[in-house]
């Protein structure tokens, strides 16, 4: 069966998100684009296994992620295990007055183990639900939740953000924006 024009257009439309996810995983723009290219070729080849009406973005993210980990294994690079990894400590300036530099944030993100980084990206930035993220990563929902919360704790530690409730202007906006019944 031929690949439909709609499918091609949807692939094209997914490229910005795919690239963002790929950079988040690889932390390297060139490797990320190679990864996206591989993903597009794979997606094209397997287009028949995609079920119309289901989440194309989640399907593509799954392909990209699998490709990333299989490349890492091929290179003999051991996949980081968050439990076994010593987090490198500090070197990032403490956040002042709520001004957290994006560059500092990026380098903090880089220090997270891959499994935690991908979890917090999928949930906190890519807009996936916990269920979708679990499916993309091939693990239980509880595992994703735990990775996200460990990632968040580690980022707070690296960035010297103590309890976010007392954190600078955030405390004010939190009060204003918090809905009492949430």
């Amino acid at each position, binding site marked *: 069966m031929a690949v439909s024009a709609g499918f091609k257009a949807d692939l094209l439309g997914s490229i910005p*998100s795919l690239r963002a996810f790929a950079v988040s995983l690889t932390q390297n723009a060139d490797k990320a*684009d190679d990864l996206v*290219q591989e993903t597009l070729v794979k997606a094209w080849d397997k287009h028949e296994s995609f079920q119309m009406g289901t989440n194309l973005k989640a399907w593509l993210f799954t392909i990209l992620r699998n490709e990333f980990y299989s490349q890492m294994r091929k290179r003999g690079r051991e996949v980081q295990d968050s439990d076994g990894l010593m987090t490198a400590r500090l070197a990032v300036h403490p956040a002042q007055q709520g001004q957290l530099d*994006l560059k500092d*944030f990026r380098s903090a993100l880089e220090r997270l183990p891959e499994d935690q980084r991908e979890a917090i990206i999928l949930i906190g930035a*890519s807009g996936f639900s916990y269920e979708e993220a679990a499916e993309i990563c091939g693990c239980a929902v509880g595992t994703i939740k735990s990775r996200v919360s460990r990632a*968040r704790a580690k980022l707070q530690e690296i960035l010297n953000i103590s309890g976010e409730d007392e954190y600078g202007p955030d405390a004010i906006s939190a009060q204003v924006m918090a809905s009492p019944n949430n």
Partner: protein
Amino acid sequence: MEWKPGVAGEIMTEKTKHGSADDDSGRRLSADPLGANSEIGRKLKQYYDDLVSDEVPDRFAQLLSKLEQAEPAAKKG
């Protein structure tokens, strides 16, 4: 260790997106720790949105066109 029967065993619906209220992690997550009230949540989105809005190189559109041309049945629809 990480697997919580109460969570993973549930039938997942839209509402669990925000965490279920009856387990520990769910309670913390129901406050949306990565939402707009959180510095980390905001930075995370800023970081990601920056990446998403990066201009897409032509190579990808060219690649898809190449793949399309290589499709034997492409014209038949």
